[in-house]
Structure formats: structure tokens, C-alpha cells
């Protein structure tokens, strides 16, 4: 290259090989995460493969031995200059009013490689200035240079080919189909990769100039995948979040929720100071602003006045690892209660999640591998993981076997899709594993056998993406399935639990029976390091979320701390959440907003700093710890969650947090206590700013965690397995057979957009939550005398919601699917905690 010898990888494109060796070839259409198309011709360079130098697009030419390349010859420069002049023929040059101005590849490369003067005096082509191609994305076709990046992304990466080139030649434009907007969960990525200002997104339009922005590398917080992001802010306000290209995680892509979710942080309704109220109803039910001293003393007083087992903490997945550790220390080590649960009855047994041999995303996407998905739709719950899996299936020959409650965004790519009816999941998984390990009947040609054959052929090292199936089934269904699945030879697990930094919470011990470092509470004994840092330990095993709410409803909980949780909307049983919240003597909410539960029951609300407002780390589903950075200051006097916990610790037990005055100090104490956290040193974090650092025991080289196969139940639940009597889900009769004539088995799973607290405060995403729909299999329409598309009431023994009836062949016959938190129709109103299946009926309204 340019006279020097350069080493390249076999098959590598010239443009990439040159870039790796330090020579940047200008480009618009080429993107390292998408297939090359040679659309823009900007990367023309002179290449000689033995027949003399000729111009070739370097994004389309794979390297070869002895190839000679001249990137800066007169011919190359003239070609690039000419291409730019062509590209600018129809470009409006409205840079002064264009959002891209200042960070625009077209602008930059015109300066560096272009003509500087135009010879084009004719009329340029005109289009109406920007058209909205979706709720958030605007398209200015005059600026577009037809590089095919957005359309390629939509088709190749997202699988939502809703934008396409229309017309031909000079009339080519990017557009959507009539009345069919670019309603992709990933539409924001097209804005990020657009090399001109053609695509802009509502949240950033006309907000700032790139040179006024400062940027920090951080981690996305809205789901548990931990996508790496660049947070950009100006004048102490976060204005934009961009995907950062972490090889191991998100490849630069983000879902729109991760990208635009920051809007909630700028909401005027953010809590900016602690609030107190004397009564939750009656005349004095208005919150009044309070000082931190008064508010914290109120909480400390309530904690002092009661005994540890009458204190409970729910939630914590919103917090950073450091804040989670401090809250675990406060609850378990200072107050002495084990009634702590970061999951709200919507997850899996934490002992199980921590104990299973863990896989990384890379393990799951390894070319030629096999992935078994047992859980919800990744496209809805972990959209960035969906992108990675989709890529692995489409491009790298990864086979997918899915066991899901209904059709998913990956179903059309799956080798086998098994859709157990509610209540039969564990049995189906057991049969599948039996068949796959050869310990059960085989040879029949059932779907299960076919799927098992795929698993057998995969041999060792199947990666199981394991999440909670329908939220209308109890958690132990998932637990039982996981126990079965661990019989697969060398199977590794990638937890698919959506809630934010949930893995961090579990690793920090925010679950009953656990302390930091995946240790069982009763195994701690004289564990030296924990005893040094923690004044005490809980005397007895605590309650999980369901049991906490039951106890609270009975009046057995005096202080209930909602650590960023909203049980009314997030707990599986709305009625129990309501009774629990009303039954607890003092409810303390630590949150960014006054959520529905706090509004109902909290006496004290502590204003917390959100993501981008405090430093810390995040643990994703793989156990990958990455930095979350502070970019702006929190509103008002809102405090970082770890500070709130530290303050309470000091009030209750002076000296218990001495030295813990920064996230770094907390990380150091955690790494000292927990072997799992030992790799998380400041050096390691600094050296791996993009990829982060895996906790011990994660990934293909890690050891299996500490889960024992006997299982260790949390209180209030019994272990479930195939050896149990026929009352467990695994042994249950087929609930379909007991179904009343007009009854349906309820399925409910989450959608990416819902009526959650954060999304309610995102102006650009607020309207995107799909309206409540009750979906049934087309075969079931004649079981009920109601027309499709009419308004119906879905009724269970416990409540009802209103929805519109629809048919969906992806829903198993006999089942009815509703979204978890559709606006005005919370599915948890239909469910009672711990019932095996929920039977619903449909009434016209």
C-alpha cells in the first residue's frame, strides 16, 4: 500500500485493511458492520493485481497477496474529487441549518478530498423538506446521497425492510411504503449511520451543534444487555445518546429505547428534592418538599423503631453496581433484614441464575453453534441481543431452537419453534431434554423429537438463552425448565431477564438468601472479609417479593423500601401489590419520579440521581461489568443511590461506611468481599473501556458458579423438579384439557414500548406503546361469538382489562395473549401470584 508492505487478513476488504494499517480511505456507503455494496464510489483507489493500476472501489475488493494499492496517486485523488462533485450535484448545501453540520462525513470529506468549488449551475432536485418516516425519524431527501446505509441496515441488520429505494436513476429516493411508517425498534441507528443530514431524529433536531457537545463513554441502562453508548451533553443537559461499537456487546447498534430513553431524565417531572407526607390519604396526602436531613432521619427513625424482619426492600435493578452493594449492605449488613428482592415476581430464582454456567453473547453467536431460546421474545425484551442473534443465524450458520410462549421476532429464522401452552412449559422442556440426551423415548417424528435432534447434532456447548416465559405462569416454571436444561451436556446459559442492571443486583446480593459474591447467606459463617465490612448479618432467611407483599398486606412489614421499583405496574399480581403497598406501615420510595406505587402509598420519597448523573458500573446479563459515567448533574438536590444508602448506614450504625466515599472505594470493598468481583479492578476497567470486564465464572473459560443441583429454595416456595409430586408444573396435567368451553389460558409478555414510568416521560416514545390487544389463535375464533377487531373485556377470576380482539397464528390454540403493560390495561390485573395458569374469558363490551 502506497509503497509499504501491509499485512491483511484473508478475505478482508481493502478499505478495512488500509484503515487498520493507518490509512483512511474516504467512504460514505461502506460500514464495517454491514455488507459492502460499492454504492457511493468514494473509496476509489488505484489497485494493481498484476495487470497494471486501475481504479477500483476499495470497499468491494478483497485483499490478495502481492496486491499493489495506491491510495494517494493523482488518479485516485482525481477520482475521489470527481465522485464528490457528482454527489454534491443534488446536495442542497444547506449546512448552516443542517443538524449534521460539523460532524458530517460529506462536509468533512468534501473539505479533505473535494473540489471546493462547484461547476453545477443548474437547478437541483427538490423534495418537500423533511418528511416524517416514523414517529421519531425525519427524512430530508434533498440531502440524501443514496449510500444505501439506512436501507441496508433496515434490511440486513434489523430485518425490518420498511424503507427502500424507490424509483430509478435521477429519480431514486429513499422512502417508505404508503401509510407504512419506518416503525422499527431500531430506526435510530439509521440516523446515527447516515453520512449526511438526511436522517434526523426528533429528540436531537435543532438542539445543539456537535462542537458544543461533550461526550463520555457509558452503558445503556434501559435493559439488561448493557449496550455501550456515548452520552453527549451540552450545558449540563444530555442531548443525545449514540451507540458505541463494542465488539462483545452491541456492535454499535442500539434499540430506540436505549437511544432515546434519556429523554425521561430531562423531564420536568423529575424529582429534585426529597418529599414527605404525613398520610397517604385523607386531608394531608399532599407531598411536601423536605430537606435531606429530615427525610433521611424519617427513614432512619422508622428503621430504628422496628425489628429487622419487619423491613423489606424491593427493586434495585435501576441502580449501579456500587449503589446496589451499598443498599445490600444497608439492608442486610446494617439493618439485618434478608427481605430483599430485586426481582418483582417476574424473574427467575436468583440462586439458579447465579449458579448456572454462564455464556457470553459471543458464545451464543459463535459461528456454527446452536442456541436454545427458552423465554420471551428477545426482539421485545432484549432488542440488541435480538440483533446479535439475528446476525448469527442469518450470517454465521447459528441454529436456533426456540421454546417460547408465542411467535417471536426470530421465529421465522428458527429451525424449530415449540410453543407450549401455559402450564406445560416445564413438561415440554423435560421431554425435549430427555429426547436430546437420549434418556427418553425417541424415534417418533414429533416436533419435539425434531428439535431434540438439532440439539443432539449440536453436541456439547449448546447456549441456552433463558428467561421467564409468560408472566402469567409462576417463576418456578422457568426454574424447573432451567434444571432440566442443565442436563444438556456442557450447556451454558445466557440469562434473558430484561430489567436493567438486574445481574448486578443479584451479584451484589439483592435477593433473599444471598450476599455479595454469589454466596448463600447461611454459608457465610465466619467469612472473614464480609464480617470485617458488615456489622451484622440477617438472622434468618428472608422473603421474596411475593412473600414480602403478602406479609405487608397482612400488616407484618413496617418499612417497605421501593428501590426504583413500581410494584403496581411491575409485580405480577396487581391486587396483591396494591394490598401490600397499603398494608405496609411506612413506604419509602427511592426513585427518579413519583411512580404509581409511590403515589399510592409512599410516605417518604427520596430523589435519586439517574444514569448519566452519577458514576458507577453496570453488570449485564453476561456478567460483563462496564463503566457508567456521570455526564451531567442531577436535578436539584437529588443524590446518587449509593450516597443515600451510605447516609442511612451511618445514621443507623456510625462508622459502618468509613472510607466508602466514592464508587471506586465501594468497588474496592466489593472486590474484596466477593471473589466473583475480584477481576473488577480499576486497572482492568481502565484498560477495557469499551468491552468492559467479565466477572469471574463467566464465559466459555469460566467455571460453573455456585449453584447446587439440590437447589436452595427461598422461603415461601418449594423446590420444583421432575421428582416432585404431580403438583409441580412439571408433573401437571395438560391445563388445556381442563379448560372451560369459552376459556383461554392467559399469556402475557412484555413489549419494548409499554406504559412504564420512564417511557411515559419520553416525549418521542410516549405514543408508541401498542394499544391493548387480546390475541387468539385463528382456530379459536369459532369458540367465541365475538367478531375480531371489536372491543372486548378480558376477564379472569381476579380482574379484568379492556382490549381489542385480534387473531394471531403465533399464539398457541387455546391461549390468549395480552401485552404486559399496555396503556390503561395492565395485564397483572388478571393474575394472582403463584397460580399455575390463569384462565380468562372474553366478553364483548
Amino acid at each position, binding site marked *: 500500500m502506497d509503497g509499504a508492505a501491509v499485512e491483511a487478513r484473508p478475505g478482508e476488504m481493502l478499505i478495512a485493511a488500509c484503515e487498520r494499517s493507518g490509512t483512511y480511505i474516504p467512504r460514505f456507503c461502506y460500514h464495517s458492520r454491514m455488507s459492502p455494496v460499492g454504492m457511493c464510489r468514494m473509496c476509489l483507489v488505484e489497485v494493481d493485481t498484476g495487470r497494471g493500476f486501475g481504479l477500483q472501489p476499495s470497499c468491494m475488493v478483497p485483499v490478495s497477496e502481492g496486491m499493489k494499492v495506491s491510495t494517494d496517486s493523482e488518479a485516485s485523488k482525481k477520482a475521489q474529487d470527481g465522485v464528490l462533485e457528482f454527489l454534491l450535484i443534488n446536495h442542497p448545501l444547506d449546512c448552516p441549518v443542517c443538524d449534521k453540520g460539523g460532524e458530517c462525513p460529506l462536509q468533512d470529506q468534501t473539505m479533505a478530498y473535494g473540489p471546493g468549488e462547484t461547476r453545477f449551475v443548474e437547478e437541483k432536485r427538490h423534495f418537500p423538506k423533511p418528511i416524517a418516516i416514523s414517529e421519531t425519524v425525519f427524512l430530508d431527501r434533498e440531502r440524501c446521497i443514496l449510500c444505501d446505509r439506512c436501507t441496508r441496515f433496515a434490511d440486513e441488520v434489523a430485518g425490518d425492510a420498511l424503507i*427502500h429505494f424507490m424509483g430509478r436513476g435521477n429519480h431514486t429516493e429513499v422512502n417508505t*411504503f404508503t401509510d407504512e411508517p419506518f416503525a422499527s425498534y431500531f430506526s435510530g441507528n439509521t440516523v446515527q449511520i447516515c453520512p449526511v443530514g438526511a436522517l434526523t431524529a426528533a429528540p436531537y433536531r435543532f438542539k445543539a451543534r456537535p462542537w458544543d457537545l461533550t461526550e463520555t463513554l457509558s452503558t445503556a441502562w434501559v435493559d439488561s444487555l448493557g449496550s455501550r453508548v456515548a452520552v453527549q451533553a451540552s450545558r449540563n443537559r444530555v442531548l443525545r445518546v449514540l451507540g458505541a461499537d463494542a465488539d462483545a456487546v452491541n456492535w454499535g447498534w442500539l434499540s430506540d429505547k436505549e437511544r432515546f430513553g434519556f429523554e425521561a431524565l430531562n423531564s420536568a417531572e423529575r424529582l429534585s428534592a426529597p418529599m414527605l407526607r404525613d398520610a397517604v390519604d385523607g386531608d394531608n396526602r399532599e407531598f411536601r418538599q423536605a430537606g435531606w436531613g429530615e427525610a433521611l432521619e424519617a427513614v432512619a427513625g422508622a428503621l430504628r423503631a422496628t425489628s429487622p424482619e419487619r423491613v423489606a426492600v424491593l427493586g434495585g435493578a435501576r441502580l449501579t453496581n456500587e449503589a446496589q452493594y451499598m443498599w445490600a449492605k444497608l439492608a442486610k449488613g446494617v439493618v439485618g433484614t434478608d427481605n430483599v428482592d430485586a426481582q418483582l415476581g417476574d424473574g427467575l430464582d436468583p440462586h439458579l441464575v447465579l449458579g448456572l454456567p454462564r455464556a457470553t453473547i459471543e458464545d451464543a453467536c459463535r459461528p456454527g453453534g446452536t442456541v436454545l431460546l427458552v423465554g420471551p421474545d428477545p426482539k421485545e425484551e432484549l432488542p440488541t441481543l435480538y440483533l446479535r442473534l439475528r446476525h448469527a443465524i442469518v450470517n454465521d450458520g447459528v441454529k436456533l431452537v426456540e421454546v417460547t410462549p408465542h411467535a417471536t421476532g426470530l421465529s421465522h429464522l428458527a429451525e424449530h419453534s415449540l410453543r407450549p401452552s401455559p402450564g406445560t412449559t416445564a413438561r415440554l422442556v423435560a421431554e425435549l431434554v430427555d429426547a436430546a440426551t437420549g434418556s427418553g423415548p425417541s424415534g417418533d417424528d414429533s416436533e419435539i423429537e425434531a428439535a431434540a435432534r438439532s440439539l443432539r447434532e449440536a453436541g456439547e456447548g449448546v447456549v441456552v438463552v433463558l428467561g421467564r416465559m409468560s408472566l402469567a405462569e409462576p417463576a418456578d416454571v422457568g426454574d424447573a425448565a432451567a434444571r432440566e436444561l442443565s442436563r444438556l451436556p456442557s450447556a451454558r446459559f445466557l440469562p434473558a431477564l430484561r430489567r436493567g442492571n438486574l445481574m448486578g443486583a443479584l451479584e451484589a446480593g439483592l435477593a433473599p438468601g444471598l450476599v455479595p459474591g454469589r454466596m448463600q447467606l447461611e454459608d457465610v459463617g465466619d467469612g472473614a472479609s464480609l464480617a470485617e465490612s458488615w456489622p451484622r448479618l440477617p438472622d434468618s432467611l428472608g422473603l421474596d417479593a411475593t412473600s414480602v407483599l403478602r406479609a405487608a398486606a397482612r400488616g407484618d412489614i413496617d418499612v417497605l423500601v421501593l428501590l426504583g421499583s413500581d410494584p403496581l405496574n411491575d409485580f405480577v399480581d396487581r391486587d396483591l401489590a396494591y394490598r401490600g403497598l397499603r398494608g405496609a406501615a411506612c413506604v419509602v420510595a427511592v426513585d427518579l419520579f413519583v411512580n404509581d406505587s409511590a403515589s399510592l402509598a409512599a410516605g417518604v420519597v427520596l430523589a435519586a440521581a439517574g444514569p448519566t448523573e452519577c458514576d458507577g458500573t453496570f453488570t449485564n446479563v453476561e456478567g460483563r461489568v462496564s463503566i457508567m459515567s456521570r455526564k451531567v448533574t442531577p436535578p436539584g438536590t437529588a443524590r446518587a443511590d449509593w450516597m443515600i444508602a451510605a447516609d442511612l448506614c451511618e445514621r443507623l450504625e456510625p462508622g459502618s461506611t468509613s472510607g466508602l466515599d466514592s464508587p471506586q472505594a465501594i468497588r474496592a470493598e466489593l472486590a474484596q468481599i466477593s471473589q466473583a468481583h475480584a477481576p473488577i479492578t480499576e486497572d482492568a476497567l481502565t484498560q477495557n473501556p469499551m468491552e468492559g470486564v467479565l466477572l469471574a465464572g463467566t464465559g466459555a473459560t469460566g467455571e460453573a458458579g455456585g449453584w447446587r443441583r439440590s437447589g436452595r429454595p427461598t422461603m415461601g416456595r418449594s423446590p420444583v423438579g421432575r421428582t416432585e409430586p404431580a403438583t409441580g408444573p412439571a408433573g401437571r396435567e395438560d391445563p388445556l384439557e381442563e379448560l372451560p368451553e369459552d376459556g383461554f389460558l392467559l399469556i402475557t409478555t412484555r413489549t419494548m414500548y409499554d406504559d412504564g414510568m420512564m417511557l411515559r416521560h419520553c416525549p418521542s416514545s410516549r405514543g408508541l406503546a401498542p394499544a391493548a390487544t387480546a390475541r387468539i389463535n385463528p382456530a379459536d375464533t369459532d369458540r367465541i361469538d365475538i367478531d375480531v377487531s371489536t372491543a372486548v373485556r378480558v376477564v379472569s377470576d381476579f380482574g379484568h382489562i379492556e382490549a381489542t380482539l385480534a387473531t394471531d397464528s403465533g399464539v398457541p390454540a387455546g391461549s390468549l395473549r395480552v401485552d404486559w403493560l399496555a396503556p390503561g390495561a395492565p395485564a397483572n390485573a388478571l393474575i394472582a401470584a403463584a397460580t399455575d395458569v390463569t384462565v380468562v374469558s372474553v366478553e364483548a363490551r
Partner: protein
Amino acid sequence: MTLSPANEALAAEIIGWFPRPRSALIPLLHLAQAQDGYLTDEAMRRVGELVGATPAEVKGTAGFYEMFRFEPVGTYLVNVCTNISCLLWGGEELLEHACESLDVEVGGTTDDGMFTVEEAECVAACTEAPCLQVNYRYRGRVSPADFDRLIEDLRAGRTSIAGHGVLAQVRQSIPADRLAGVVPPEQAREAPVWLARNEAGASG
């Protein structure tokens, strides 16, 4: 409208001809255009469903081809060439005359829905300049008077020309004496009827 039951059946058959359903996209678009005279949004949606493409992909693909129409056109689509040869022989004047006599703009359709007049790029018949196409059938050396006569004949039904869609041309009825037919090579000792006739005409 979406596809008629007969066309649905045909579509299913057409899809069967190809190794992948997506390969049937263009043939199905021809089918849809033959049905409605242009590609309706509903038909494109349906075709997308049938071949596993999004409506945007269907429209984007169709939009590459000039002969797929997204708006209704007249029964007779008149393309007047104004490229160099035709220009020199009065193509522009012919176009102007066509628009004036039919009272339409270029690209417009007469109120009765009979004629759409468009300006065409070179149709590769320069020896016959100025030329035009009616539903892609050629007419060469057309004077304004010839044009008026052609329009009169078409209006009066004295001449008929198959529809503008590809299928309409495939399906037009061909007189028996012009049929080439499919004949196995070993039986094809004699020239086809129409060729024999032409040769006879040439020699006589």
C-alpha cells in the same frame, strides 16, 4: 383492490415455478398490473405477503421499472419519442399536437380515461422517426394527421391494441395463421405457416 380469486390461484401457481417465492415478485406484479391497469397499494401489499417481502421492498423493486405504473393510466398509453432522430423529424411537434388534440398535459390522461400521453426516451426505432408507441406497440413515421386518424380509429373501435401490461400482450389473441407454436425440432422440417406465407409474399 387486492388480487381476485382467479389471480390468487394463478399467483400460487406462478410462485411454484420458482425455487424461492421472492423470485416470483416481478411476475406477480405483472399479474397485479394486468388486473387493475396499475399497481394498487393493496395489490402490492398482497404480493409482498405472497412472496415474503415488505410492501416497501415490493414498491421499491417495482419502482425500478418504468412500465410498472402506480397511478391509473388510460386504456391506451401513448409514448411519443422526442429523442434526436424523432426530434429532427418532428417528434416534438407530434407530442405537442397529441397533447393539444387530446387536451392533456404531458403525462396526463383524457377525461374519458381513453388516452395517456407521455414523452418517451429513444424507443430504438430511429429509422421510422418520428415514432410513437401505443401500449408499447410501434407506429412509425407518424404525422399529426396520422395521429388523429389513429385516435379516431381507436375511439371508434376500428383498431384495437392489447393493453399496456406485459400479461395483456402475452395473452392477446394471435390469428392462427400467425401462430408460431411450439414444435419439437425433429418435426420442424417445414417453416412455420407465417414464415412460409412471408416467403411466398416476398417471392411473389
